[in-house]
């Protein structure tokens, strides 16, 4: 890839992308989809959907990070 005559060297390392990183995208979709969760019903213990959906995603976000953590752990363990 060349811009004009000078080729810039980008020294940050590129690793092969693994689909496991897509897990990290899920929480952003869950919170960005406001029209879906901006509603009262169904309620749990009198707590409207808007509130418990977002609170549930606090925990689910941590859960989404776990597979990526384990995957990186295995990858780095294999490295000499």
């Amino acid at each position: 890839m060349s811009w004009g005559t000078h080729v810039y060297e980008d020294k940050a390392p590129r690793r092969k992308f693994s689909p496991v990183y897509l897990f990290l995208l899920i929480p952003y979709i869950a919170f960005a989809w406001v029209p879906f969760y901006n509603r009262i019903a169904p309620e749990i213990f009198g707590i409207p959907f808007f509130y418990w959906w977002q609170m549930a995603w606090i925990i689910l976000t941590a859960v989404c990070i776990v597979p990526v953590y384990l995957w990186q752990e295995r990858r780095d363990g294999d490295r000499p």
Partner: protein
Amino acid sequence: MSASPVTIIVFIALFVFVALLGLFGSRWRAGDLSQLHEWGLGGRSFGTLITWFLLGGDLYTAYTFIAVPALMFGAGAAGFFAVPYATLMYPLLFLAFPRLWSVASRHGYITAADFVRGRFGHRGLALAVAVTGLVAVMPYIALQLVGMQVVIAALGLNYNITVPLLGTVSVPLISAFAVLAAFTYTSGLRGTALIAVVKDLLVYITVLAAIIIIPAQLGGYGKVFASVPPAQLLLPPAQGHSLGAGFGYVTLALGSLLALFLYPHSVTGILSSSSRNVIRRNAIVLPAYSIALALIALLGFMAIAAGVKAMPEYAEGFKAFGNNFAVPALFLHMFPAWFAGFAFAAIAIGALMPASIMAIACGNLFTRNIFKEYLAPNCQPQTEAKVAKLVAFIAKLGALFFVLELQTSYAIQLQLLGGIWICQTLPAVLIGLYWRLDPRGLLAGWAAGIGAGTWMVAELGFKSSTYSLHILGWTIPCYAAISALVLNLIVSWVVTLILRAASVAPTRDETVAEDYV
């Protein structure tokens, strides 16, 4: 308005205990505190558990604990943006910040501006990042003192003295300030980390008690939500050609989380950990604080249900602090006297501890990126540490002066602007970890972002930060930090392309690929 003596005694006892803990913190895992990285980063020695306490105490400040429920109390659902904000920061922390940790420990970087200086080889850009950090974090320290003021007022400790030049000052506030200054100076980040452990325990116990005791007295969560005006229970739905309040809600959460990790005190907290794995593990366990934050946000609704605003005994507090008095009033009304003292200590110590890290971060930034870079390039490590301690003190003094002499509303407005400004360092710091745009392009983008962001907030009369853009007949309510950041990225990229096309000589990058992994 005065709290019961029991409340005040419990409060003072806990406060004194924490002050002593902070002062003796220098002996804990003692290091050579005349070195800047020992004083200002705790020797990069903190493991998973201490980092969990430190970052938790650092990111979830007392002001958050007062302001978020205050927003729920006044505006309803919109205040719940704190939940996506405090949750969506963790995938980002997990992904990007181990890279920053690696490159920083390899090259001895202490601040984000240190990294920018090394990565881009451009002094102007590093200075811009450092100054943005300093300017943005100062009003944040001031807001911690505001949080302290609210607690002092709720306790009814109105002991004022008249000081020449300063006028009337509150004795409890000055005492708290003296404690803060003393332990930051002597112990640095070690003392702060010890206090963080106590602070977080106090906060968790308070939250647990609050979510069990208060709804039980109010007749359950159903009753609490039923007492909120129906129009405030949800975000207003989008109408016609508008993306609606939901878009503003999401961009506010997104911009706030991007800003949070760029603040100097967050960088200090992250870099003090002992390995990149500590950061990765913390991204999984830190959300525990976000659960606490969500429950604290709901305290705003409980204050509505309890009807504290109509009670004459709290009228004075609401008059002085507005909705920020909702949580203290709720605690005074609902908790037994001794436990109210416990809860107020949690808030006050929750203000002290982040204020200390913020002041340390100011010291690190000024010393490394202004003093050593421009004023005394050949200074000794001991001088570095001395200057940092002094600057940390001056930063706190400035914040105190701010709170005493100017209206609280100025601190809040400046904090609002600070969040927008600090976001404009993202292309250099965060994106810089992956891609290297031209530093001159980044500087132009930074200037454009700061200018546009400030202009949008000025247009809104410094009252709000959600500016509605009108594009192709659509109305897009967007957090100004995000729209300014988009402009910033476009300018940075376009200028980079132009410079490359014109074959302008590139600047030097002292980091190599292996430094980041």
